[in-house]
Structures are given as C-alpha cells and as structure tokens.
C-alpha cells in the first residue's frame, strides 16, 4: 500500500498538484460564500424562524414521535419561547382523554354579537394581534327575516332558499348578509332586526382538510379535535381551499404577538406561537379542554350561548341539547359531520 502510494506520488506531475490546489481553493471559496449566504439568509428571516434550532427543523411529525421524543420537542420549545417572550412558558403534550369526543353547541337566539368570544380566543390562543389580527371566530351580523303582509295575502312561500326562520314565518330571506358585516362595530349590541352568526372550525368528524394535506400535518385526534403540527406545515393552503367553513387562517407574515400579551400556557398542537407561512385554526383550546377546562370562548360568553362537552356522555350539556333542543348544522349536505351545532330554544 505504502509502496503504491509512493509510486503514485512520484508520478504526479506539477500540473496535477496545481489543479488539486485550485480545486481546494474553489471549494474553500464556495464554502465561505455558502456560509456567508446562509448567515445573510438567517439574519434576514423573521425572528421566530431564525431562532428555530437545527433539531427543531429536522424533528419528526408529531404523530410519529414516541412519548420521550414528544417531551424532548416540547422542552426544546419551552426553552426557546421562554427566552423569546421573557416568561416561563409551558408547552403541553397532553393526549386526547379516553372516552371523550368533544362537541360544541351554540344558541343562536341568545348570541348578542358582543364578540367577546372573538377577543378571548385571540388572547388565549396567541394569535397575531395586528397586521393582520387573526381571529378564529367570525361573528357575522345578519338581518332578521321580515314578515310581509302582502306576501301573506298572496299565500305560500315565494321561490328560492330561505334562511333561519327567526320570529315566525319569514317571507323575506333571513340570514341576509350585507357587505362588510364581518367587522360591524355598533355602539350597542344586539342591534334591532339583526341576529348574529358565529362561525369557527366545526371539527368535522370527516374533515376534508385532513384528506388533502400532502404532508399529513393536520389530522383528527381521537377526541375529535382536528389539530395541526405547525412544524410540518408547508403552507400549501390546500386545507384552506377545501374547508367548507372557511375556518382556517394563513400566516401571510410573521405573527405579531407582543411579549407581554403572550399566553405562556400552551400546547404543542394548540396555541404555541406560530411562524410565518403556516396555517392555524380553532382547536377547541386543547391546552385547556384536555385538562378538563372549558374553552375560552365558552368561559367568556356573557349570555351563556356557548356550550361545550363530551358527545359520548349522555349527561353532558351538549348531548342534552342534542336530545332536547331544535338543532341545525351549517352545510350538513357536505357530509363532513361537523361536531358544531347551532340550536334554538
């Protein structure tokens, strides 16, 4: 071996030596350029992403992690968020509880459109506060159906689709939505001749968003909550395109979450701070509900219009509503089996 390599060395011409040197020189230059480029890229990207550690970039999909890996990932994030937001942050990994299937019911007659649920949700779930203010709940102001004497004399219902029949026979389309009624801001609620229609993720039993996700980052947990592993989301927005309820939100820019407003009680699949280019949505406050607490919107509702509970428990509020009240679902014809019900007393 030694003799052979010596022989080889002897046979090497000065030209070969110089070409090797050139090669190393080129490699060195390219390497230096690449390092400098990478540094420039990292400093140019948003803060949360730049602080993401190498191991976080290359971690497994949450569903494929074992318990130890989940705890390790959560600990890594706890450290990063604690440093970033200057407060001790908890990233929970609580799994779905046994024998629990979460369901939600909303009394559309009681809702006064105060939008306290919207604000409480933003606060609880660490959503972007401005440019844009991301809201998981949309409360849509709708016009009540109106009774027309002329139509009554004519008899029967006119042709066409008719909305929620609030206050007797509606001879004019109810649920008529005016342009810009999403961001209504009256001095006093409820307004006369209006009713309010809160919308959020329906946590479908057969969620189309899960079917289209090319990286399987969004999936349905056993407790019925459709969750997202933000670290695996590639931001393709396919899930947004198929959601019949427009319940998903996309982070067009880096979310703007002020340090002092950050809620440090988080869950890996829930309200931990998100990054630019990922999709997020309501996940029934898993950081609370999986520890036996109500969601923040249920807790804050001043008129008790929102009910939340276990659909498998016949004594739960939501099951009692299903048994005794007049219930309807939005876009039931899509057969996605939403677990969010609207009811009327």
């Amino acid at each position: 071996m030694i003799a052979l390599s010596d022989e080889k060395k002897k046979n090497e011409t000065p030209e070969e030596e110089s070409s090797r040197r050139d090669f190393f020189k080129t490699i060195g230059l390219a390497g230096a350029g690449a390092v400098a480029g990478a540094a420039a890229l990292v400093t140019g990207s948003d803060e949360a992403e730049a602080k993401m550690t190498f191991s976080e970039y290359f971690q497994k999909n949450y569903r494929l992690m074992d318990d130890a890996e989940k705890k390790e990932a959560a600990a890594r994030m706890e450290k990063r968020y604690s440093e970033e937001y200057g407060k001790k942050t908890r990233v929970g990994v609580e799994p779905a509880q046994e024998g629990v299937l979460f369901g939600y019911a909303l009394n559309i007659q009681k809702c006064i459109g105060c939008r306290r649920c919207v604000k409480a949700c933003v606060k609880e779930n660490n959503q972007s506060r401005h440019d844009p203010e991301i809201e998981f709940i949309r409360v849509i102001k709708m016009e009540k159906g109106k009774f027309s004497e002329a139509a009554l004399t004519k008899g029967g219902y006119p042709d066409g689709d008719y909305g929620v029949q609030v206050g007797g026979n509606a001879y004019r389309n109810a649920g008529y939505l005016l342009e810009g009624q999403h961001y209504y801001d009256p001095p006093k609620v409820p307004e006369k001749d209006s009713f309010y229609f809160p919308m959020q993720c329906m946590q479908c039993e057969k969620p189309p968003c899960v079917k289209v996700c090319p990286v399987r980052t969004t999936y349905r947990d056993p407790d019925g909550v459709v969750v997202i592993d933000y670290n695996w989301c590639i931001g393709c927005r396919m899930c947004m395109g198929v959601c019949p309820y427009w319940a998903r939100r996309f982070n067009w820019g880096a979310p703007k979450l002020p340090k002092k407003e950050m809620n440090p009680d988080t869950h890996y699949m829930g309200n931990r701070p998100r990054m630019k280019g990922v999709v997020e949505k309501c996940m029934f406050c898993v950081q609370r509900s999986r520890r036996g607490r109500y969601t923040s919107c249920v807790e804050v509702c001043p008129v008790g219009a929102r009910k939340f509970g276990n659909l498998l428990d016949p004594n739960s509020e939501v099951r009692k509503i299903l048994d005794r009240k007049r219930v309807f679902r939005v876009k039931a014809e899509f057969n996605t089996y939403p677990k969010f019900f609207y009811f009327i007393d």
Partner: protein
Amino acid sequence: MADKDKKPEVLKTAVKAVSEGVSRRGFLKNAAVATTVVAAAAGITKTISTIIPKENFQKKYADDILAGDKALVEREYVVMSDEEKKDIVKQFESSYKYYKS
C-alpha cells in the same frame, strides 16, 4: 562548479517560495473579495426589501375569509329531526370506536 550548481537550486527555491506566496495571497484575496461581495449583496437585498412597500397582510387575510361570509348568504338552515339527531349520535359513537381500534 559548486557555485554554478548552487545558483539554480537557490533560484528554484525562491521561485517556489514566490509562487506559493502568490497563490496563498491570491487565495486569501479571493476569499476576502467573495465574502465582501456576498455580505454586500445581502446588505443591498435587505435594504431593497425594506424600501419596497410591504405587503398588506390584513387585506390578504380578509380576502381569505370574507369569501366564506359571502357564501353563507341566503343559505337554508334546516332543523334536524329527532331521527337525524339520534343517528348522528350513533355515528359519533361508532366512529369513536373505529378511530380507537
């Protein structure tokens, strides 16, 4: 003779030293130039990106969701019958068992 033999040897060493010195210097020069160029390019890109008017994220966000609000216009909401309600609970129970298994 001995002096004559020595001269080329000295020359050879000098030439080698000079050529090595030049290539090392050249390498370092190239490296420094490359680093400066990359850093300058990154700096210029950053400056340009700050000058360019920022995207209106609020508008983009609104465009994503307001279409959904419009789609809710004049929809028909039909109250579920008792049968339907019983069926849906059964569906949920069986699907829970299915997902658990």
